[in-house]
């Protein structure tokens, strides 16, 4: 990502398999690459990554549709309530 300097970066579960130290290094790297000229889509299961890479928006995907959008607080709500809560909204 740093080498190719893309406009749109999609990070598909970049946090999977990383320990906490590695996660911080990766998140720190991604944060350094954030700029007004690029955009980043972070796909993740866990709210933990979003403590380090703080998103402007959070979307919840369910059954192939975005069923809820919000700010980083939505990720915290998901962490607390789990995905069953989202299923009830559908």
């Amino acid at each position: 990502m740093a080498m190719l300097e893309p406009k749109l970066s999609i990070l598909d579960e970049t946090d999977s398999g990383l320990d906490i130290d590695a996660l911080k290094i990766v998140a720190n790297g991604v944060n350094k690459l954030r700029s007004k000229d690029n955009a980043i889509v972070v796909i993740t299961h866990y709210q933990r990554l979003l403590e380090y890479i703080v998103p402007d928006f959070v979307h919840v995907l369910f059954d192939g549709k975005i069923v809820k959008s919000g700010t980083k607080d939505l990720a915290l709500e998901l962490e607390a309530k789990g995905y069953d809560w989202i299923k009830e909204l559908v």
Partner: protein
Amino acid sequence: MITIENLHAQVEGKKILNGIDLDVKSGEVHAIMGPNGSGKSTLSSVIAGHHDYEVTEGTMLLEGEDLSEMSAEERAHKGIFLSFQYPVEIPGVSVTNFIKTAINANRKAHGLENMPANEMLKKLEKNQHYLKLILVFFHVL
């Protein structure tokens, strides 16, 4: 940057995406969460242009340009990057060589010459140092 409207997609005849709307502006970071099987990875594959995924409805515009008829390579040249969840190592191809090939393919598509080796090395070193990435070099790049 990218505007996705009413995107439907399927793989091997199985419908996975059922009408995604997403607008990501320059300078923004969006997070996509969801349970297993909700379509997260499919969405990233479809944006990147994976040939196994068929878009059946909807549009994807990158800076106003329609992506639907573009191959994965063309999309990459337009500036779309996908980091895989499980990157595959190609035996005998070093990370440096891999990156070099990707950068030069990109430059070629824009009518530029290959990046000179010394410039490439400088850029690699600068980024490794800047991002403190040496330990997880494989994972991020």
